[in-house]
């Protein structure tokens, strides 16, 4: 008998914590899919390290969401017992790994946002969010450095790696707009000074991206149209497949532990 999905009372703070937790869990899970499959052992370890950083961030945010909601849910229930429509992560982070260039560019786009975002969030009036941000910022700073160096080497590498890096940038570009959006629920927290307005970081993000893309001899996409929907549970077809793997044990054997 499969375990049913939980119900979540999404107050602004609970929803905010779940969105950040889901970003980190889904991107961390995607990176974990590389374990044992990366182009070289050194990069296999690097991807697994970043995956574990992100899953650690997810746990901190899920725990805070559970504590804030106070309805008997916990980090495991949030991760394992929510359906795809209850997941609140960015569409960017659920995109499939593709080739190594797609994985690197996805990480680069996200880390270039996450690094300044967590640095700014260290000044949050919410002490727990400020503490999680302080830990996440150091991790994101390294993710940004690592992915940037790879973007430069792939772009400014061979004809093959250049083509793959450019294709990854072009494919993933339309998923980047969602990072800078804040809906009604998040705006409540922005106005009370609990969280920062992500839109304010867009110019800095664009400078970081265009600097590295230029150094990599790659081209910035000219597409203006942006995808959205992940924050409100409207996902691409890829997330359902990811969750069916992530959740299969807990759904099939509710409460199983080892």
């Amino acid at each position, binding site marked *: 008998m499969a375990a049913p999905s939980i119900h979540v009372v999404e107050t602004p703070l609970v929803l905010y914590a779940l969105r950040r937790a889901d970003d980190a869990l889904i991107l961390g899970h995607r990176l974990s899919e590389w374990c044992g499959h990366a*182009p*070289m*052992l*050194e*990069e296999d*370890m*690097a991807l697994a*390290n970043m995956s574990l950083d992100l899953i650690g961030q997810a746990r901190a945010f899920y725990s805070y969401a559970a504590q804030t909601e106070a309805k008997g849910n916990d980090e495991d229930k949030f991760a394992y017992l929510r359906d795809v429509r209850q997941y609140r992560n960015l569409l960017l982070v659920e995109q499939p790994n593709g080739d190594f260039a797609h994985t690197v560019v996805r990480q680069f786009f996200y880390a270039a946002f996450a690094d300044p975002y967590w640095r700014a969030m260290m000044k949050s009036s919410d002490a727990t969010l400020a503490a999680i941000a302080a830990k996440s910022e150091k991790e994101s700073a*390294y993710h940004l*450095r*690592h992915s940037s*160096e790879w973007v430069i*080497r792939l772009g400014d590498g061979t004809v093959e790696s250049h083509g793959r890096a450019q294709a990854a940038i072009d494919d993933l570009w339309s998923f980047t707009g969602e990072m800078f959006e804040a809906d009604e629920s998040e705006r409540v927290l922005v106005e009370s000074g609990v969280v920062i307005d992500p839109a304010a970081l867009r110019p800095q993000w664009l400078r970081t991206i265009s600097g590295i893309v230029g150094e990599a001899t790659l081209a910035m996409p000219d597409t203006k149209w942006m995808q959205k929907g992940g924050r409100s549970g409207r996902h691409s077809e890829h997330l359902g497949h990811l969750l069916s793997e992530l959740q299969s044990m807990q759904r099939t054997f509710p409460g199983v532990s080892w």
Partner: protein
Amino acid sequence: MATPNTPLWEVFIRSRNGLAHKHVGSLHATDATLALQAARDVYTRRGEGWSIWVVPSSAITASDPAEKGMMFEPAETKIYRHPTFYEVPDEVGHM
């Protein structure tokens, strides 16, 4: 995976309270920057150190194991080179 694009690097790490960098292993990387990052990712996952050196393996000149006899055996019979051979007068105290 050894290819012409990913030469071998030797990794040296100084532990948190150690004075000297110690050799911990090797890795493959395209260049010094990525070698340093790979060293961080492969060799410092359990808080092993505060400082990393990476050196191209090709920059190391090594002694030939076949010359072990000529190189090292002559020292084995010179026990008087160890300071413990000498008797320290009591007036010197703790050294």
